[in-house]
């Protein structure tokens, strides 16, 4: 029965975009000013030979009366290669211990593992109010979230926005020889306040703060760590309060380009604090072609209970982790994006409102981890 419910959920999410498109009202009937439909393909691969293939679609309508509706669907498939080591060796045992995937049987660790996720997100906007609903389904994870925000303009040039979200997730681990396979749940509460102000005719500044509180299962149910010479499942606290504040400066430059710099400070009650600096240059190469060059620097310290090796039984206060994201490290990201409005140069009526986009990003960190992300998309506005 459990399996059939999960299958039904996945099928419903997969079929929703087609149902939504077929139910879309005619422009005359609903006062629709503009439609926009987009398809996006992403391919991610990293230095551990993990790859993610993502296909997504987006359909939006701008309605009369300053209202809009948007529906986004995405399907991601994660492909994790088998352990590349001789069975029975220390290298193979270490790889299996640290694996963040389920392993059943002696040979499964040496075989490829695939997992897909379907995701659907809908949003409405009316004047300064927005509302949204998100649902995603994986074989071992089902997540839902509702969100909303309200924004208002003060003193002609200051926009103040307040937003919130509540998410509730159900975790149903797959069979795993050495993991904690019990069903569990997780809930997330999020609030944010963002102020945006035009300082000069060419300068805009945005400042914001966010609070997120997470309750429930927050470790990987499949991952193990070495503790006091033995191998036991990872265990993180079941509560985490996270907060951040950020500042963005957006400057128009007179050669038809814009520069953007942002800084974010983050900390949480697990002891992780981080700083992020983003810098980007946006430029018109020709009238229909825009490019964006992007650099991001990120640095964080380790969580209180992170250790390279655990020597005490049970870990640190009963907590232990094999998640490198809770260790101290720094990371760099470099990227470029090109957007091309096809209709303008060719003067072909059928191409009006057609836009292509391409993006490449290279990520690397001080753990010798690196990744490449390629994205391409096509958008139709009609």
């Amino acid at each position, binding site marked *: 029965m459990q399996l059939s419910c999960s299958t039904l959920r996945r099928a419903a999410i997969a079929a929703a975009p087609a149902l939504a498109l077929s139910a879309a009202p005619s422009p005359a009937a609903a006062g629709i000013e503009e439609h926009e439909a987009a398809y996006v393909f992403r391919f991610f691969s990293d230095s551990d030979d993990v790859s993610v293939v993502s296909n997504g679609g987006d359909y939006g309508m701008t309605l009369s009366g300053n209202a809009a509706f948007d529906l986004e669907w995405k399907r991601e498939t994660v492909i994790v290669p088998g352990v590349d080591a001789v069975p029975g060796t220390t290298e193979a045992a270490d790889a299996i211990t640290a694996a963040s995937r389920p392993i059943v049987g002696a040979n499964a660790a040496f075989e490829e593992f695939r997992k897909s996720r379907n995701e659907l997100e809908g949003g409405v906007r009316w004047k300064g109010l927005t509302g949204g609903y998100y649902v995603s389904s994986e074989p071992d*994870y089902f997540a*839902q979230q509702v969100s909303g925000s309200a924004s208002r303009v003060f003193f002609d040039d200051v926009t103040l926005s307040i937003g919130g979200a509540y998410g509730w997730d159900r975790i149903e681990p797959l069979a795993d020889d050495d993991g904690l396979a019990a069903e569990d749940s997780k809930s997330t509460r999020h609030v944010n306040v963002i102020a945006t102000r035009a300082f000069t005719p*060419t300068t*805009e500044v945005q400042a914001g703060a966010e609070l997120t509180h997470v309750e429930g299962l927050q470790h990987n149910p499949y991952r193990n760590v070495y503790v006091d010479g033995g191998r036991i499942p990872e265990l993180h606290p079941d*509560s985490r309060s996270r907060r951040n*504040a950020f500042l963005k400066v957006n400057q128009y430059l007179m050669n038809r380009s814009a520069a953007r710099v942002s800084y974010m400070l983050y900390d949480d009650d697990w002891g992780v604090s981080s700083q992020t600096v983003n810098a980007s240059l946006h430029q018109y190469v020709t009238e229909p072609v825009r490019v964006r060059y992007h650099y991001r620097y990120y640095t*964080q310290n380790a969580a209180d209970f992170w250790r390279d090796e655990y020597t005490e039984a049970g870990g640190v206060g009963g907590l232990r982790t094999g998640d490198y994201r809770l260790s101290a490290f720094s990371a760099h990201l470099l990227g470029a994006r090109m957007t091309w409005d096809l209709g303008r140069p060719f003067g072909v009526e059928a191409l009006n409102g057609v836009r292509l986009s391409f993006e490449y990003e290279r990520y690397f960190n001080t753990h010798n981890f690196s990744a490449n992300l390629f994205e391409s998309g096509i958008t139709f506005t009609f």
Partner: protein
Amino acid sequence: MSRRTALSFAAARRTALAAALLAGALVSAGCAHVRAYEREYLQDPIMSLADEAKESKDNLHWIEAREGSTGGAGAAGGGCACN
């Protein structure tokens, strides 16, 4: 009340205060207002923070799955088995 819960309330109060101060400073800094007819450059597509937030949302999703922090986009991401 546990120590962690007490800490999180204190952290929430400090963050709310910092946000209020930041927003207040942003609102009150400078006297000159930018009029609607002076916003030609601010409304150019390459200056759109909203468009960038939408483009960045999916990329943030895969970055955050590989780092310990979260946020900066002004919205919460939906859940996934990214642990």
